[in-house]
């Protein structure tokens, strides 16, 4: 490849990297500021531009007045996200396998329509569902509980799992299942003994999307909880008062990003092995 292309590519990668990192660096810097360091205009480097303060960080682990303790929300968030992702992944994988291997027919409704029905759930803007979900969870006595949120998140995440896994299974030759059946497996056994062990890349991708969309949901976590169950995104907006403590927000943002950054590393491993081929199409 010629030099021009190479330079262009390097510049592009460099530029984009800066763009990606910039908000994080800014947040990192801001998290060590106090009100004076903020109101005097943009500053960047601690000790040089401003006198650092650890207030932003300590407030996240302080109960009560000054700060919000994020340990509780962190655990709640993790619990809701993990359970809902797991349930969605299990149900979604089964459904996706069914849709990719069997023919379903209910009147004029066929496989493609069922798949569309799953995916179309994501078209619905969350606001639409806020009140009905509220009433539904109220009837179930599930408002402000992890269970209630899991229920709602499953509806949110299931379509994603179905989407990814349907495409993934479409890439696994049908003969593999047939072979398992000729080798003495029931259709269900074939799935569990043969297809599932070969679906790890797809499950990783689907699981990743579930985690991302679950961890990052704000709206339902916000509407359907009161005081007992608090998720991270909701805690952060509780700092979004008319006077915004930039320092706590920044520290908070960095902490809440951390767990999923680990997910990025896992995903990258699978991606570079090229095993996600069928997982995304």
């Amino acid at each position, binding site marked *: 490849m010629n030099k021009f292309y190479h330079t262009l590519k390097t510049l592009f990668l460099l530029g984009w990297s800066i763009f990606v990192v910039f908000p994080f660096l800014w947040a990192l810097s801001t998290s060590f500021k106090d009100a004076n360091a903020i109101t005097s205009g943009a500053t960047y480097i601690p000790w040089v531009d401003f006198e650092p303060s650890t207030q932003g960080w300590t407030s996240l682990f302080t109960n009560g*007045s000054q700060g919000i303790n994020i340990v509780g929300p962190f655990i709640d968030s993790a619990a809701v996200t993990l359970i809902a992702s797991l349930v969605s992944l299990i149900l979604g994988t089964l459904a996706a396998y069914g849709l990719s291997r069997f023919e379903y027919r209910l009147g004029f409704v066929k496989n493609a329509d069922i798949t569309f029905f799953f995916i179309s759930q994501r078209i619905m803007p969350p606001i639409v569902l806020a009140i009905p979900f509220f009433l539904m969870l109220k009837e179930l006595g599930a408002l*402000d509980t992890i269970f209630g949120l899991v229920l709602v998140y499953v509806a949110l995440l299931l379509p994603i799992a179905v989407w990814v896994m349907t495409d993934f299974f479409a890439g696994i030759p049908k003969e593999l299942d047939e072979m398992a059946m000729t080798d003495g497996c029931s259709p269900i056994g074939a799935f569990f003994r043969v297809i599932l062990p070969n679906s790890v890349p797809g499950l990783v991708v689907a699981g990743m999307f579930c985690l991302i969309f679950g961890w990052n949901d704000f709206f339902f976590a916000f509407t359907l909880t009161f005081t007992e169950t608090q998720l991270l995104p909701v805690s952060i907006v509780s700092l979004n008062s008319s006077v915004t403590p930039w320092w706590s927000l920044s520290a908070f943002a960095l902490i809440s990003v951390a767990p999923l950054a680990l997910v990025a590393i896992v995903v990258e491993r699978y991606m570079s092995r090229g095993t996600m081929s069928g997982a995304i199409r």
Partner: protein
Amino acid sequence: MIKISKFIGPATLLALAVAAATPAMAKDYTQFGIEKDLPGTCSYEATDAKDYSGRSLNVITHAIPVIGEPTALHAEQFAALTGAEVNVVHVPFGDLFQRIMIPFQSDQNAYDVLFYASLWIGDFNRFLEPVPQKYIDSTGMSDVTDSFTGVATWNGEMIQYPMDGDRHYLKYRTDIFDNAEVQAKFLADTGSALTVPETWEDYNKVAAYFNDRDWDGDGELNYGSAEVAKRDDLMFSAFISRAAPYAKHPDVKGGFFFDLETMEPLINSPGFVRGLQLFVDAQKSFPPGGNNFGLGDEIFSFGGGQTLMSYSWDDAYVQANQKDSRIRNMVAAAPLPGAGEVWNRDTGTWDTFATPNRAPYMTWGWSSAVSQMSEEKEMAFDFLCFFANEANAKNDLQIGRFGVNPYRNEHLDVDFWKGQGWEDKTAESYVSTLSDMEESQNRVFDLRVPGVSQFMSSMANGVAEAMAGQKSAQDALDGVAKEWAEITERIGKDRLRAAYANVVKLEDNEG
């Protein structure tokens, strides 16, 4: 003694640990961060005597820090004193209403205690528990000023628990306005003397003059005016402040937003249009991004010394005068600018006033209440009473970001503020401005009717369209009036009139 500092939270925890270790100091409550316990119905000592252990209280409040932080602080103290479990949830302003309203409408007992914007009383009154007589008779309550007792009352019954007093007034930099050199230069440049603006036209003029210059010599540009102009962030209050003197004629009774008789919206009447035009015009003296400023930005901007003038709640003023502030004692308060011409809707003419017409806007403030559905009403009221006890109120008043502002007569005491390290002019102008508003006969109150959010949201949207240059002031407000008429239609004129009558009674000084 523990100094009050911004590290109050950690300090409190530390203090609590100390307290646990030394039970002998039982009557000394300084470990809670107050200077001393003050006598009163719900003093620390009185609250300490109660035992709510094993019971819990759910509280919804505003985001941290405004009101949210004192709520959390006092919840923590209340829990320590009584043994109760107090859960506090913090919600941004824009969503506070729905977070309270959805459980109300669906009969879900979600929160015992609610902190919210007092103007929502028109919607919430059906769901609130009236304040029991024994709290009305409490020492703290009897000192609450008439305006804020009025704010807490609905159809003659007190259903909100006053814990904050709010109004808009003008804040300005004395280091500029009182500076002889600057005054001389201003006179030379403009041909008129530099005085604290008496009308909004003056305000705009002064703001424009001082815009985009480094008049405090710190190397950064300074600006003329910081205002809350972000659509969904309390901008409606700023607009009402600006429009009130043009639209609220002291001799015209029977409604400011609506004609109480016909329930026709007055929002597109010439007075409001003039107010909006001046608001639009003022944008050129805003700091960069100023037309997207929320209250927090305004506080940072004026409180941080970036802008010359500002008007809104007390927060920026208190912030500017905190110990670590760069502009401490360089600010003073004054009544909101008035209007030389006022629209008289009875005669359909502009009346000229030799002394500018002032229409102090008793802007909605924070209030609190107990839900009817609560199963812990007594504890809930005890908590509110404790929240607002004499010692706590004094403490909260001193911390700008808490957003708690004078609402008792004892708070309007120059010596108290001087005791905080405020100098003469800063303290005196503050107290006199606030006191005078209490005495005004031409006050404007919020539209405390059912569906107030719809009205305000519609108005804010129209104002924002004019501010963004998408529509002219008249067109924008015509659009708002049309929407208001539709909302009125949907809600029902009679229901609305019944509610609005409460407001008009206060405005017409009949309440």
